[in-house]
């Protein structure tokens, strides 16, 4: 029997129990990738065996293992956006606080780098996943634009900067820059990445003269 395809979703759970199983599957996939596993080697059978559920039950939560990977990625992105939000929600940010937020962001990205890499790998052959991820980045960029615009209105950010253009570049810095640089995840290196990232963001947006 072919299970009914369930639409990709990351919200809309019906029961608490379902939520827990969903979390468990996400955690299993996360552990597998973060311990160095290759996404293409992972099977739905393996996941269901470890979670102690049937194949049919698996398909209640996820369309396939690609959908599971995608949901895991969205969750890690949601977590990082939550971290960045501490900066974006603070209309009176100072440099030390920005450095702390960026430091936490860099450490989180380093922890999830294998998930990010697996997703980047999968989008090469999955147009649906690619569009979904592009839309996540677009939303991040749009939010960043409104943060810059609000800063320009309050006088914290130089009004001569083009808000959407600068937001798009700096979003690329946060996403691509960090993805590339946190492969070396030694704490001293991550601190260096956070220092440089903070310098670029602070000087571009806030620094006086």
């Amino acid at each position, binding site marked *: 029997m072919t299970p009914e395809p369930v639409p990709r979703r990351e919200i809309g759970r019906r029961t608490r129990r379902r939520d827990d199983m969903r979390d468990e599957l996400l955690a299993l996939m996360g552990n597998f990738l973060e311990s160095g596993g290759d996404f293409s080697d992972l099977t739905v059978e393996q996941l269901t065996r470890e979670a102690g559920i049937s194949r049919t039950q698996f398909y209640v939560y996820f369309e396939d293992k690609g959908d599971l990977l995608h949901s895991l990625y969205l969750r890690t992105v949601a977590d990082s956006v939550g971290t960045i939000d501490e900066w974006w929600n603070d209309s009176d940010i100072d440099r030390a606080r920005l450095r702390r937020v960026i430091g936490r962001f860099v450490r989180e990205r380093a922890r999830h780098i294998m998930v990010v890499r697996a997703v980047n*790998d999968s989008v090469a052959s999955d147009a649906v996943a690619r569009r979904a991820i592009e839309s996540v980045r677009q939303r991040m960029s749009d939010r960043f634009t409104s943060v810059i615009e609000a800063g320009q209105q309050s006088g914290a950010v130089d009004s001569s900067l083009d808000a959407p253009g600068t937001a798009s570049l700096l979003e*690329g810095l946060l996403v691509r*820059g960090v993805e590339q640089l946190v492969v070396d995840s030694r704490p001293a290196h991550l601190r260096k990445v956070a*220092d*440089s990232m903070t310098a670029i963001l602070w000087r571009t947006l806030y620094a006086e003269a």
Partner: protein
Amino acid sequence: MATRTRDTAALRTRRKAELLGKFLHAVERLDLQGVGFGEASVETLIGEAGVSRATFYSYFRDKNDLLRELAESSLTEMLDLWLENLPGGASKQQLSAAFDLIIAAYLSRRAVMVAAGESPPGSEMAREFEALIVRSADAFARQIRTAQAEGRVPTDIDARTTALLLSWMCERGLARLTPDSSPDQRDMLAACLTEVYWRTLRGKA
């Protein structure tokens, strides 16, 4: 004998450069027709470039080898533009003019750069592309260190990490320019890149 060997090697190098030029244009033309590098077969590529199969295989192992060579020559060209146009102590106007040149160079190599830059992580092509960006960033880091030693750039930033972050940011910014981007969009990208680089390294003014 030694002289002859040198001549043959020089000839091969020149011939290879010509072939890369032909393939570069072929890849861009195919891309505009909706045939991305990933979908194009060697047959399609050599047909579009007007190169024989035998010639192709005497210079390139396979399609990926061609892409690697195309990406390398493209990035070398852009790095040369950067270095030639930004002598020590360059002004903000010079920086902005250098970005104009880089953007124009990128757009004529866009299909190659996107195909190389978006190869699956961990693949040989992705590692090669990363190494090429790191090479450009290292050259940029040397410029930053010189400027720090001469007192033009503050010494509180790590030259290499900053150069790498800015280079990846620039690579993303360029990759987002579409082939049909308007001159206004290009100018806007150049202006934004100029502001981020200049403010980070030299301050606001």
